[in-house]
Every structure is written in structure tokens, then in C-alpha cells.
């Protein structure tokens, strides 16, 4: 192998643009230059992962100025959720980020449970963790496939989507839906796990680490891939924190931070996993973090499979949880409970909570306010993609136009979540 060329190294301190942290300004001496060309990139461009628009000032191939424009996919999820009862609003949460749907569902359900003070059975907690980790692998696979595709590695896309499809099969098996499963219910799970799931999931656990090996052997030794990812899109640890970056972007900049370990929720404090951290702060470091996270997620899924507790899968609180279907034929009370929950919805005590989980993209938060009635007063999602896009201007300092695709891709943004 040829000697690796010298590549830009991560910088110390800060280089966030000023005065606006999210807009890269053309240097004053070049502002009136005729060599600077302003190009509109997107919102309809296959490499923007949706509808991101970038207004780029180019000097030759060099990116001098940059402003990200979002909002093309704004669908008013938060306004709509205010019109629905709490249990109907669960349906909206996974659609916000359509790649990590189960994590979004989870954070909303956890927020409602926190306000209700509801205890969730251990089986539901472990099953939620298992599915959240499968979902993390799913999300990273979609990222890897599309990011590699944008850099010319077309075959990666097919390999990643082959494994992704296996995960979707598992979701279908367990919930009846491939995406937007709406399997998490306030109080636990919507249904018990079907018996055939365990074997199929164990097969996947067997197969997935080998698949990750395959991906690595395809791209990790490829000179083109290394050339196009190393030393690009640099973000120092200080800048990453100041810009609110989380998840693989933060860990790729050398900050050892993962909410699953720092602030354990579900049963993450009872399983073994490692938090991968890379110091380089470039596109390659983010890629490495995601690859290792897939391996760690497989380990968590494996432990959850082996140690899945038995018992009930949903809380026994008839004022919140739908009664078992068969009871409706024999019990008057169950019929009343069912009718009241479906028509009015359950009531959530007055208050406000903020709950955060580690989604595949970083800190996913849900701020919910209740006035004590059956509908949310306000629901706000802290979308990690929305925050990640704020780092484009900083990460794009000194970049070339061709690297722009790699850098934006490495932030792993899902536009549905950015615009909500």
C-alpha cells in the first residue's frame, strides 16, 4: 500500500463562523470578486437525503460561503399532535424520523409514562431496548448505504439494504408493520412478542457481525473511500459541544458521551456494551463510530435475547391501558374502559417533562406539556438532525465542492426530523 498522504488534522479550539454560527461568510476581500459564484444546491438533489437546500459560494472548487436552508418538509407534526389524544399522538412520533422510527416512538411514550408515573413491566422494558437497538442498526445501515452510494460505492447500497430488509422483516414479524410499527404503547407493548420472533432474531444476531465485516472489507481498505473521508469535515470537540452535536458526530470528535451509559434508561445499565470514541473529528471518524456501534448494538440485542424476562408485557392499569381483547365479550367494566380510552383518551396529570434518549443520530428529546386533559398541550421534539445541520457551516470550512456531499452525508440528517 502506498504511503498515506498528509491529511488535515483536527484543530483545537473553535472556528465556528461569526456572527451567525450557522452561516459561513465569504471573506471580505473576495466578496465583490467576480470569481465567486453563488450556486443553489437542492432542495431536490439525490444526495441531500431529502429536501435540504444549500446556498454555496464557490471560488473555483473551494467552498467559501455556505448557508443551509431547511423547512421544505415541514408538516406540522407538533401542531397536529396537540389535536389528538395522547394515545393517538403516538402514531405521529415515528413518522417524524422515518429511519429511526422506534426510537422516536420510545421517547414519546417514555415522556407520557413519566408524567403518569406509570411503572412498565420488565419484559416490555427489555423488548423496547431490543427493538431500539435493532432500529439503531437499521438506521446506521441506511446511512452507510446512502453515504457510500454518494461517494461512488454503489454495491454497498445493495449489501446494506439486504441486511436492512432482514431487520424490517423482524419488525414485521413482531408488530405487523415494517416501518412506523407503533408497537410501543403507553404502559408497555401493544401485543406480546410472537413466539417465532426469537429464532429469527437469533439468526440475525448470528449473521450481522459477519455482514459488518463484509462492509469493512469493501470500503475500509478502499483508497478512494479513505481519500474522500479522512481529514474532511473537521469538527473539534469544543465546537461539537458548543454546536450541540450529539451521537456519532460528537463521539467522532473525541467526546466520550452516550446517554445510554451517562443517563441509563430502559435496561441499558444491565447490559454490557462499549461506547466507541474516535479522536479525528472527520467524516471517517463518524463512519468508524457508526460501524462499531452496529457491532455493539448486535451485542445488546444478543444479551436481550438471552435474558428476556417473562411476565406481562403491558402495565395492568385499566385507566390507561386497553383491556385484553377477549375480556370485552365477558366483562362490562372492560367494555367501559375500552370505550372511554378509545373515545376520550386517558388523562395525563398536569405538568411538563423533558425526556431524552440516545437515538441513532444522537440526543433525541421530547418536551411534553399537559394541562391535565386527554390531549397534549404541547409536544416538542429535540431533533438531533436539526441540530446536526447547524454544524455544516463549521465543518465545511476549507472544503471543496465534491467534499460537501461527504460532509453533509456524514452528519446523518433525516429531513423529516429536521423540519417536523
Amino acid at each position, binding site marked *: 500500500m502506498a504511503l498515506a498522504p498528509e491529511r488535515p488534522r483536527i484543530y483545537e479550539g473553535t472556528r*465556528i463562523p461569526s*456572527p*451567525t*454560527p*450557522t*452561516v459561513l461568510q465569504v471573506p471580505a476581500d473576495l466578496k465583490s470578486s467576480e470569481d465567486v459564484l453563488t450556486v443553489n444546491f437542492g432542495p431536490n438533489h439525490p444526495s441531500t437525503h431529502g429536501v435540504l437546500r444549500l446556498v454555496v459560494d464557490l471560488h473555483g472548487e473551494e467552498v467559501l460561503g455556505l448557508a443551509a436552508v*431547511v*423547512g421544505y418538509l*415541514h408538516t*406540522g407534526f*407538533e*401542531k*397536529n399532535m396537540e*389535536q389528538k389524544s395522547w394515545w393517538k399522538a403516538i402514531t405521529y412520533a415515528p413518522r417524524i424520523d422515518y429511519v429511526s422510527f422506534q426510537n422516536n416512538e420510545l421517547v414519546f411514550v417514555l415522556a407520557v409514562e*413519566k408524567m*403518569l*408515573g406509570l411503572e412498565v413491566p420488565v419484559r416490555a422494558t427489555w423488548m423496547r431496548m431490543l427493538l431500539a437497538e435493532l432500529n439503531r442498526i437499521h438506521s446506521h445501515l441506511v446511512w452507510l448505504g446512502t453515504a457510500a452510494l454518494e461517494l461512488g460505492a454503489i454495491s454497498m447500497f445493495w449489501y446494506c439494504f439486504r441486511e436492512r430488509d432482514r431487520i424490517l422483516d423482524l419488525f414485521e414479524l413482531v408488530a405487523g408493520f415494517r416501518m412506523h410499527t407503533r408497537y410501543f404503547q403507553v404502559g408497555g407493548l401493544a401485543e406480546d412478542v410472537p413466539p417465532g420472533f426469537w429464532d429469527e432474531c437469533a439468526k440475525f444476531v448470528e449473521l450481522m457481525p459477519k455482514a459488518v465485516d463484509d462492509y469493512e472489507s469493501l470500503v475500509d481498505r478502499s483508497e478512494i473511500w479513505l481519500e474522500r473521508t479522512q481529514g474532511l469535515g473537521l469538527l473539534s470537540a469544543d465546537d461539537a*459541544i*458548543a*454546536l*450541540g452535536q450529539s451521537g456519532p458526530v460528537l463521539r467522532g470528535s473525541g*467526546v466520550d*458521551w452516550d*446517554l445510554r451509559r*451517562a*443517563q441509563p434508561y430502559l435496561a441499558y445499565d444491565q447490559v454490557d456494551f462499549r461506547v466507541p470514541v474516535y479522536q479525528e473529528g472527520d467524516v471517517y471518524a463518524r463512519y468508524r463510530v457508526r460501524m462499531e456501534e452496529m457491532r455493539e448494538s448486535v451485542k445488546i440485542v444478543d444479551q436481550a435475547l438471552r435474558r428476556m424476562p417473562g411476565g406481562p408485557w403491558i402495565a395492568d*392499569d385499566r*385507566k*390507561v391501558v386497553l383491556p385484553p381483547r377477549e375480556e370485552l365479550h365477558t366483562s362490562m367494566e372492560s367494555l367501559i374502559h375500552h370505550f*372511554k*380510552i378509545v373515545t*376520550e*383518551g*386517558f*388523562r*395525563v*396529570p*398536569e*405538568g*411538563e417533562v*423533558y425526556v*431524552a434518549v440516545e437515538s441513532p443520530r444522537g*440526543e433525541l*428529546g421530547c*418536551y411534553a*406539556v399537559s*394541562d*391535565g*386533559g*386527554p390531549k397534549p*398541550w*404541547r409536544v*416538542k421534539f*429535540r431533533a438531533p438532525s*436539526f*441540530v446536526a*445541520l*447547524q454544524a455544516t457551516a463549521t465543518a465545511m470550512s476549507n472544503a471543496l465542492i465534491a467534499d460537501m456531499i461527504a460532509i453533509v452525508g456524514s452528519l446523518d440528517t433525516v429531513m423529516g426530523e429536521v*423540519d*417536523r
Partner: protein
Amino acid sequence: MLNFNRVPGLVEVQDRHGETTLVVDAPRVVDSALHLRDELGFNFLSDLAATDYLGWGKAGVSGYIGTPAGRDLNEPSTQGYQRLPGAKPQRFSISYHLLALREGAPRVRLQVWVDDGQSVPSVVSVWPTADWFEREAWDLFGIAFDGHPNLSRILMDDDWEGHPLRKDYPIGGEPVRFSGDE
């Protein structure tokens, strides 16, 4: 335990659902933010969420009771009697959800209250990530942030009228544009 007594402009400390809320004077929010960041180590702004409380407490709420603790039959709203939620100081609240990246992951909610037309000092200089969050709050609620370098709409069109997440903004009331009109 963190000591919040020295936070500038502190009005009230609330502790509910295991979360601490610091209500501070809106004009002094930058001082409070700097104190929290530099003295208490809250270096990470997780989220900035505005809420419109128009109509809050005007109508009683009742509904199907959700918690074992809430089943005192004599308590208003358990049996269909309506109960009024607790009053709020102003129309809008802005909640800054802060996190310290250190052992124990301490979180705190910094909250300010403003009325329609009042503005809040921008915290972009304290946490650069507030840039888009404040633009979002401006766009969807019409709360202005003084000193923000680029306070413009972010999710809605630049020429959009009204602020959609306000409670008096009707759902389904948005104007529909047809290309033939132009």
C-alpha cells in the same frame, strides 16, 4: 446537589417529576445562562422549546383519569367535574433544557415567561446551537429574540403570515396558493 441560589434573576425553583425548573427574569436570561454555563458547568444546550399558554385555565379540563394516585372520587374532575389547571404567569414560556456533559448527566430547565410582543435576549452568544432553535421559536410562535444575528423564518416560507404553533392559529386555516393566481 447543585446550588441554584446564586443564579442571576432567579424567580422560582420548581422540582417536579424529578426535573428542576429555574424560572428567571426574561431580561436577565443571558446572565443566568452564563452563570449556569460557566459556574455550574451546563455546557450543552439540549433544546429550546417555546409554549403558548393562550386559553390555559380558561376552560376546565376533565377526562378519563390516568393514574392510580388520581382516583380520589372527591377530587374535582375525577367524576366528570371539571378542574382548572394552575395559572401561568404570562402567555408564552421558553424553556432552555440544559445538560452538563459530566458524570451523572445533570439536567436543568431554565424557563422565562413573556407576553405577546415582548422579546427575550438571545443566548446565541452563550450556546451557538441556540441559533436555529431561536429562529424556530420566532417562526412558529412569533417570539422575538434581541441580539440574534439572523432572526428569520426557518421552517415556514419567508412570506408566511402568522405563527402556526400559536393556540389562536387555526388548524387547516392556512391559505392555499394556486399557480393560476399569479
